[in-house]
């Protein structure tokens, strides 16, 4: 998958998780930029991403996700 394809899939996952069809994300988006990004939505988001891309992140990987770009790159690594 290309990073653009991953970002497009992530956009749909974000819109569903945060129940906001108008949400926009970029590689620089962080938890501080998204209304309602709390512990519950974070758990739902990571679970949805793992389910969609059929990957299982290592803890050490998840803990380094500072923005959506980090998440995208990690997915790209797992799905290469």
């Amino acid at each position: 998958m290309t990073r653009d394809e991953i970002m497009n899939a992530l956009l749909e996952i974000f819109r569903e998780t945060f129940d906001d069809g108008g949400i926009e994300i970029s590689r620089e988006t962080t938890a501080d930029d998204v209304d309602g990004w709390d512990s519950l939505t974070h758990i739902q988001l990571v679970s949805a991403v793992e389910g969609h891309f059929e990957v299982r992140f290592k803890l050490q990987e998840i803990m380094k996700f500072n923005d959506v770009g980090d998440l995208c790159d990690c997915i790209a690594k797992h799905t290469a």
Partner: protein
Amino acid sequence: MADDRAVRVGPARADDRAVRVRPARASDREFLIEAILEAEKSGSDRIPYCAIFSLDEAELRALLASILDEDFTGQELCISGFQIGEVEGKPAGAACGWVEGSGGMSSTLVKANLLQHFLDAERLAAARPHLERLAQLSLEREPGAIQLESIYVRPDQRGLGLTGRILAEQIRVLQAEAPGAEKAQIILMKGNDRALRAYRKLGFAVTRERHSEDPALTAILPGATKILMERTLC
């Protein structure tokens, strides 16, 4: 992991010759689980983690052991974030501390990552309505502020001033790491009067409260009101 350096803090008294405060180490894990569970109970017999994630106490202990073994800093389930108060060479009290957001991620999200990783999908799905309700009592920790959590002293060792000694050492250590930290914060349930009195005596004051009348929420928590206490640091 924290080193094994021990420090004596506070004025020496005739009855405190064998009291010391030191960083926690891996071999303290079982005592730290006791501390976390008792702090969670907040003076009641309810353990919110059990109700929220459909765990019995043995399962919760196993989960906490797995999380503590990972030792991810920046949240309260982390061995190297604890200071231990010892009396006569045995752990008698503990408290965890960290500087909020110092690793680039809020403690809430670090802990969410740990729970998402270690709990199965079924338990996480069952926890969802509880977590949604818990948001009613959410109190935001201030980025850059020192956080003190899972503060516990064994009942038979209370009255020695151990809480004050452990918290003083936590603040000293964390201020050395983050000299710009201007305040220390503690979040607790309002009904825990003994803890509230102890923290007031140590200079903490209540700055925020969140209350809920939701019976489904009060059924799983030790109280209906969460409070944030703060102390300005020199």
